[in-house]
């Protein structure tokens, strides 16, 4: 006997699949090439930079893997990633620096 009901898995899959596509398609599909007012565009310029930091901040402060307690290796890895990203302006360099910092700190402190 498994833990999660098969029917639930598929109901959630269908709802989530359709809903996710709708969210992604809503503006591209419906607004299309109609011009958007400048104040909308001005807000949209900051979408990524307003959503992604908010998404990451709780993961850094309260990592699920440590049961939600602040974790020095992960915090340092996050700081190294940001600094490397600001200095190099290169995504891959920032990722590699962050991963290296994480493994070194886990080895030293873990």
């Amino acid at each position, binding site marked *: 006997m498994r*833990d*999660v009901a098969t029917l*639930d898995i598929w109901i*959630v*899959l269908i709802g*989530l699949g359709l*809903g*996710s*596509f709708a*969210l*992604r*398609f*809503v*503006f*591209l*599909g419906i*607004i*299309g*090439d109609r011009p*958007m007012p400048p*104040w909308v565009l*001005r*807000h*949209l*310029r900051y*979408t*990524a*930079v*307003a*959503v*992604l*930091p*908010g*998404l*990451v*901040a*709780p*993961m*850094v*402060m*309260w*990592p*699920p*893997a440590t049961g939600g307690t602040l974790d020095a*290796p*992960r915090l340092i*890895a*996050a700081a190294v990633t*940001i600094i*490397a*990203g*600001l200095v190099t*302006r290169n995504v891959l360099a*920032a*990722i590699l620096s*962050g991963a290296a910092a*994480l*493994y070194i700190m*886990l080895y030293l402190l*873990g």
Partner: protein
Amino acid sequence: MTPQTTKSTYWQGVRAGAPFILVLVPFALLFGVVATEAGFTVIETFAYSALVVAGAAQFTAVQLLSEHAPTLIIIATALAVNLRMAMYSASLTPHLGRAPLGKRALVAYLMVDQAYASAILEYERHPEWTVPQKLAFYFGAVTPLFPLWLTFTVVGAMVGNAIPPEFALDFAVPITFLAMIAPMLRTGAHVVAALVSITVSLALAFVPYSMGLLVAGAAGMIAGAQVELWMARRGAVT
């Protein structure tokens, strides 16, 4: 600079997307592992990656399914995690809104954080690109990502829990996002938007179902737009 063809922007897209393989592969593996541990079959795990195409929402759904939450609550919560996609969709519309409907649908289906982030960065750097060039870049960026996303979900589902927790794959996700954010902080307005987003998100972390993130995103966008207006006005006066 020489004018660019759609072929060259496609390959630029591939090069922009390729670095994310390093983080997407562990992420996909991790999803496969987590889903099978929760009791998913390999086919169910694969179906989630193929139809939802959104790691964070998929993890949310699996977590809540194993907690036996009501299905409607699970769908609503996972969609709230994915609401940022609507903002991405809106943000890509000025660039790709004139593309044919079928291609816009394909862009929507393949929309992931990494593809969006790479694309919007290049579109702002190259306002002279045509719609076909922009589309080519976008599809280039997802070319190395989407097939590997599916493949490594299945690999993860098959190797199950053979990956020890010492590898700290959980932190692949935050590191990727942080690496993507840093190059986006081009002006003071971008920095303020990011700081406001972090502050509001942490302050509202107690709000269930990721609703705090939605408020944080909206607050960050308003802050960025207001700082931009303020800087423009100050520039006009002095």
